C-alpha cells in the first residue's frame, strides 16, 4: 500500500468486530499446532498403532498360543479396521489423556511462566475470551490426537491385515463402508470423552504459574482417578469419575448400537466441563496477574 501514513493520531475507540473477536481463537490454534511439543505428542500417538499392529502381526504369524487377549486384538487379525478400535482402546486410558493433560495443563500456566500472559491481557484479550480460546484449542487438540491415533491405525491395519466386511461384537456383519463410518463415530466419541479432562487441565492451569507443575498435576490426576476407578469398594463414587465410561465406545460396535454408556459418558463430560470450566473462569477472572 502506498497510502501515506496519516500524520494525526487516529486514536479513540475502535469497534469490536466479530472477525477481531475470533482472531484470537484462530491464533490460539495456530500457536498450539505450531509448537514442536504438539507435533511430537501427535507423532508419538501416531506411532502407537503402528507398534500394536506390528506386534499383533508378529504374534499371529508365529504359532498361536491361544492366549485370551482383548477381543479387539483377536479381531484385528481378521480385519485391519479393528486396529482402529484396538489402538483407541489402548491409547484412551493412558496416552491420550497424557497428551491432553500436557496441552491443557500448560495452556494458561505456561503463558504465565513466560510472562506473555500479561501482554495478552493488556492487549486486551479479555480473561473470559482468552480462557474460551484456550478451551477451544484444547478440544481441537483432543480431536487431532484421536484422529492421529485412528488414521495411523487405519493405515497400519490396511497395510498389515485384510480389509473387508466387519464382524461386530454382537456377531452381526456389516459392510466396510458402514464400518468405516462407525470408526469415525467412535473416534468422535473418544475425542469428546476427553473434554472433561480439558476443563480440569485448564482449571489446574489457572492455579499455578508453572507450566510443568500444571502438566504434572493434570496427568497425575488422570492416573489417580483411573486407579480409584479400579476399586470395587468405591462403587458409590465410581460412576462420577470422568474416566469411568471412557471405554463405553465399544458399545457402538454392536448391532443395533447401544448408546446408554456413551450417553452417560458424554453427559458426565458435559458436567465436568460445566463445573471445572466455571471454576477455571472464576479463578482466572479474579486472579492477580503478577508474573
Amino acid at each position, binding site marked *: 500500500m502506498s497510502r501515506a501514513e496519516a500524520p494525526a493520531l487516529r486514536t479513540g475507540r*475502535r469497534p469490536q468486530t466479530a472477525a477481531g473477536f475470533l482472531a484470537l481463537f484462530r491464533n490460539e490454534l495456530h500457536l498450539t499446532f505450531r509448537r514442536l511439543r504438539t507435533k511430537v505428542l501427535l507423532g508419538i500417538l501416531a506411532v502407537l498403532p503402528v507398534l500394536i499392529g506390528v506386534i499383533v502381526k508378529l504374534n499371529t504369524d508365529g504359532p498361536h498360543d491361544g492366549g485370551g487377549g482383548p477381543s479387539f486384538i483377536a479381531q484385528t487379525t481378521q480385519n485391519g479396521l479393528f486396529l482402529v478400535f484396538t489402538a483407541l482402546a489402548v491409547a484412551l486410558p493412558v496416552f491420550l489423556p497424557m497428551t491432553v493433560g500436557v496441552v491443557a495443563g500448560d495452556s494458561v500456566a505456561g503463558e504465565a511462566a*513466560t510472562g506473555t500472559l500479561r501482554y495478552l*491481557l493488556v492487549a486486551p484479550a479479555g480473561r473470559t475470551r482468552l480462557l474460551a480460546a484456550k478451551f477451544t484449542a484444547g478440544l481441537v487438540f483432543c480431536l487431532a490426537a484421536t484422529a492421529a491415533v485412528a488414521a495411523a491405525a487405519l493405515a497400519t491395519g490396511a497395510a498389515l491385515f485384510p480389509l473387508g466386511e466387519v464382524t461386530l461384537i454382537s456377531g452381526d456383519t456389516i459392510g466396510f463402508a458402514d464400518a468405516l463410518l462407525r470408526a469415525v463415530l467412535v473416534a468422535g466419541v473418544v475425542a469428546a470423552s476427553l473434554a472433561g479432562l480439558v476443563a480440569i487441565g485448564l482449571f489446574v492451569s489457572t492455579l499455578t504459574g508453572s507450566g510443568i507443575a500444571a502438566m504434572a498435576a493434570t496427568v497425575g490426576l488422570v492416573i489417580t482417578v483411573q486407579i480409584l476407578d479400579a476399586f470395587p469398594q468405591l462403587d458409590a463414587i465410581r460412576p462420577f469419575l470422568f474416566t469411568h465410561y471412557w471405554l463405553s465406545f465399544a458399545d457402538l460396535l454392536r448391532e443395533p448400537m447401544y448408546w446408554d454408556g456413551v450417553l452417560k459418558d458424554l453427559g458426565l463430560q458435559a458436567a465436568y466441563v460445566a463445573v471445572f470450566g466455571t471454576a477455571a473462569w472464576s479463578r482466572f477472572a479474579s486472579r492477580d496477574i503478577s508474573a
Partner: protein
Amino acid sequence: MTGTPVTGDVTESAGGPGAESRPAPVPVPPSSAAATPSAPASLPGSGSDDVISTRGLTKRFRGGQLAVDGLDLAVPRGSVFGFLGPNGSGKTTTIRMLMGLIAPTSGVAAVLGEPMPQSVATVLPRVGALIEGPALYGFLSGRDNLVRFDAADPTADPRTRSQRVDAALERVGLAAAAGKKARAYSLGMKQRLGLASALLQPRELLVLDEPTNGLDPQGMREIRALVREVAAEGTTVFLSSHLLDEIEQVCTHAAVMSRGRLVVQGTVAELAARAQGRLVVRTPDVAQAAEVLAAHQVAALVPGEGRVDGELGDRGDEALPKLCAALVEAGVRVQGFGLERGTLEDAFVALTGEGFDVAG
C-alpha cells in the same frame, strides 16, 4: 504520615523519609516551570484531562506486604511522565493496577477517564504497554509474536494486521530480523519487539516500565528518541525508571515513589529547581571563609578541600555581591564564587533521604 501530594504544586508528604534531617524546602516560584506546561491545578481524579488519575490507591499483597500505599497520582494529557523510584518502591505494582492486571486492595484508579480494572475492554485497546520487560514466544518469529499480540485485541482489524505489524517492526528497527525466532533475539531486540507490540495501533497512552533496562547506551538513546517521537505525535507517555538522568532527559513531568508512597509529583523543572542551587566559594582559606559565611546566615555549610559550600536560603541573587564583598573584606582569598544548580538527583536525595538503587 498524613501528607497528600497535590497536583500542580510540588508538595511532599510531611514527615517523609529524610524530611527531618533536611532543611525545610523553599516554595518554588511558578516561573521555574516556564519551560514545561503546567499541570492542571486540580485534585487527582477531578481533572478531566488527566490520562491517569488515582486516589488512595493501595495494594497489600497476601502476606501483608504493603507494596503501594495511598497513591494519589495525576498524569496530565500530553505529558511525558516520569515515574521514578528505586527498585522495589512499588512502581511496577502501580502499573499492574493501572493496567487491570491486579486488583487494588483499596482506592480507585482511572485511565483515560474510565475506572480500572472495570473498563479494561474499552480502555486498553487505546493503551500500549511494556511491563517489566518483554515476554515473547521463543518458538515464534518476531513477526508472529506481534501477530499474536495484535490478534489478542478484539478491536484490531484483521485486514490491516500485517500492515500494522510491518509498520511497527519498521519503526523499532526490527524489519530485517522479523523472520528470526524470538529466542534468538538479544535482550535489546526483545525490548524493541516489546515496544513494537505497544505501537501496533495509534495509542493515546503509552506505559513503559523500565524501557531501557538491559540496553547498551546506543540502544538507550534510540529508545529515548522513539519516546520523544511518540510523544511529539500527541501520545501521553508514562515512563517508569530508576534512572534519574533518563527522566531528566525525556520527561516533562515526574513523580517520585519511595517505599510504596508517592513522595512528590510535578513538572521536572519544578522538581529540579527544588534541589536548591548551592553557593560555592573556592578559596585556600576555608576556615576563615566558613566563619564569614556563617556570620551572614548561610546555612548548611560544608567545608571541603579548597572550597566551602552552603545554602543561600530564600535570599535572591542580590545578596551575592554583598557576600562576596564581605569575604574579600575579611581577607579571604576568593578564587571562585558562584551558584551551582541542583540536579534531579539532588532533589531526589533531598526528598527521600536515600540513594538510588536501594530497595525500599
